[in-house]
């Protein structure tokens, strides 16, 4: 549209730059802190320019960890987080896509009930039913295991819902054409639906990967064995110790490490991620 309002354009950039500063500043500060030596904090306020201990701090956290805070080398935790995030993402996608398929392409008794059962879990976070869920997992002997870390979280229905929405947008005629072409339900699923869902699957993978990665309370509760710790749950522990024992440089190195992989995923796969997210909820 023709608009000659330079002031408005200036204001726009001003607002956005301010916004970016607000959003980036905390992390910048964390990064700066992660490059300092241990004693650089004792003198007061955190410096605003990078220090010289970057390699040292990250090296120590990655390979040595912080046993004084009960954290093994962070590469183990990063590995666990990665594994957890991937299992959750893949698991959710798998069971969701087939259940969405059942709900959209079939009519059967209790269909509505099944849908509601699944849908209700959509918004019910683990935090709310934490105590009894913990007990169930314990009774099943799944504490301190990758199964325990992941399977209970696969119960959320976000992905089912997205796939349902997506399937509803696929023209009815496609399935009709396939039927006329002689496809049965499994063939249709494999030959038509799955290939068509490719982008959605990829998009959802990003969202669910992050969902898995940022889990906190759940791994905190069900792991006692440091072999199964995830990076995010370890953060709190590091921070708690760092409070009285000023090792913020190391804690912030860990924070940066905990943020880096999912942030990279978001930035690199921005397009897909946006699609996944916006469509998930709509």
């Amino acid at each position, binding site marked *: 549209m023709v608009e000659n309002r330079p002031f408005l354009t200036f204001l726009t950039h001003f607002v956005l730059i301010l916004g970016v500063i607000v959003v980036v500043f*905390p992390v910048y500060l964390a990064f700066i802190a992660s490059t300092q030596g241990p004693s650089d904090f004792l003198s007061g306020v955190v410096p605003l320019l990078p220090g010289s201990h970057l390699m040292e701090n990250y090296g120590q956290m990655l390979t040595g960890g912080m046993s004084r805070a009960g954290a093994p080398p962070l590469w183990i935790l990063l590995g666990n987080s990665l594994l957890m995030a991937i299992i959750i993402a893949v698991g959710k996608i798998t069971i969701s896509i087939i259940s969405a398929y059942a709900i959209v392409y079939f009519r059967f008794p209790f269909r509505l009930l099944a849908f509601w059962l699944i849908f209700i879990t959509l918004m019910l976070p683990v935090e*709310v039913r934490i105590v009894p869920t913990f007990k169930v997992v314990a009774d099943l002997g799944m504490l301190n295991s990758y199964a325990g870390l992941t399977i209970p979280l696969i119960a959320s229905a976000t992905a089912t819902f997205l796939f349902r929405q997506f399937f509803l947008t696929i023209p009815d005629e496609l399935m009709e054409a396939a039927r006329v072409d002689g496809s049965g*339900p499994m063939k249709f699923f494999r030959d038509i639906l799955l290939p068509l869902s490719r982008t959605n699957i990829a998009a959802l993978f990003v969202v669910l990967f992050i969902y898995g990665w940022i889990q906190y309370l759940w791994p905190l509760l069900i792991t006692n064995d440091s072999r199964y710790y995830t990076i995010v749950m370890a953060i*709190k522990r590091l921070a708690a110790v760092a409070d009285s024992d000023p090792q913020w440089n190391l804690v912030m190195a860990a924070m940066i490490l905990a943020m880096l992989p999912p942030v990279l995923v978001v930035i690199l796969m*921005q397009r897909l991620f946006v699609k996944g997210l916006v469509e998930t909820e709509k």
Partner: protein
Amino acid sequence: MQTKRTIFQNKLLPYLLLVPQLAVTTVFFLWPAGQAVKSSFEREDPFGFRTTFIWFDNYLQLFEDPEYLNSLGRTAIFAVSVTLLSMSLALLFAVAVNRLLRSGRVYTTLLLWPYAVAPVVAGVLWWFMFNPTIGILPYLLARLGISWNHRVDGADAMILIILAASWKQISYNFLFFVAGLQSVPQSLVEAAAIDGAGPFKRFWTIVFPLLSPTTFFLMIININYAMFETFGTIDGSTGGGPAGATNTLVYKVYADGFLGLNIGSSAAQSVILMLIVIALTAVQFRWVERRVQY
């Protein structure tokens, strides 16, 4: 509920397809939820040796407990503030980005990534910035003559967690607002321009009203987020204090159940929260179904 115009006729197959999802749902959701309901009627010692059925005592006690009522109030303040703050900032940024063409993409990328930050990380990050000894913010505030003490002052602590929680949520809201803005037909804005409305008037009389579905959706999502997903944010920062000033309902469920080992009360709180969630879900679902009309 919607299905396809034509459907496959198989009788057994749909059930088979649903089994994994339903199994996980049942075992890790329904069963525990049932357990929570059961526990909410019981009193139990920490180690689980003795259990007594006590009807509604846990619920009655909750509603007599000033701490619980306090927590309800705190949660409301927190949820409303986070929702308002993060949504209004996000809307501002989204509108700004929407005005720009190419450079908007760069800003979008920069504004998007906090989505990937774990709530607990956000909590620790802001806790660090507000650290009384080395934090930069108390230092700056002190120079402005504002005394800051989230260790003692409940309001300060509340502000801290609101900031941390909102910070993390801005990206999400931003994204949806951008999508919402893009779905406002350009021709309406043009029609308004021809009808003599300036940029601000166009925004408030045309764009904002048309964004209302997005706004409403985000409101529900944000309330839900603030109520439940900020557990880590609080645990990573204030731990519910000082004097319970940031002890939200979810945090209290955890604190009473896992730290306080008061299983019965915690279960009763869980049940109440579940009811809240179900109500929110129902509202949202109605909205979603209304929007999804092909």
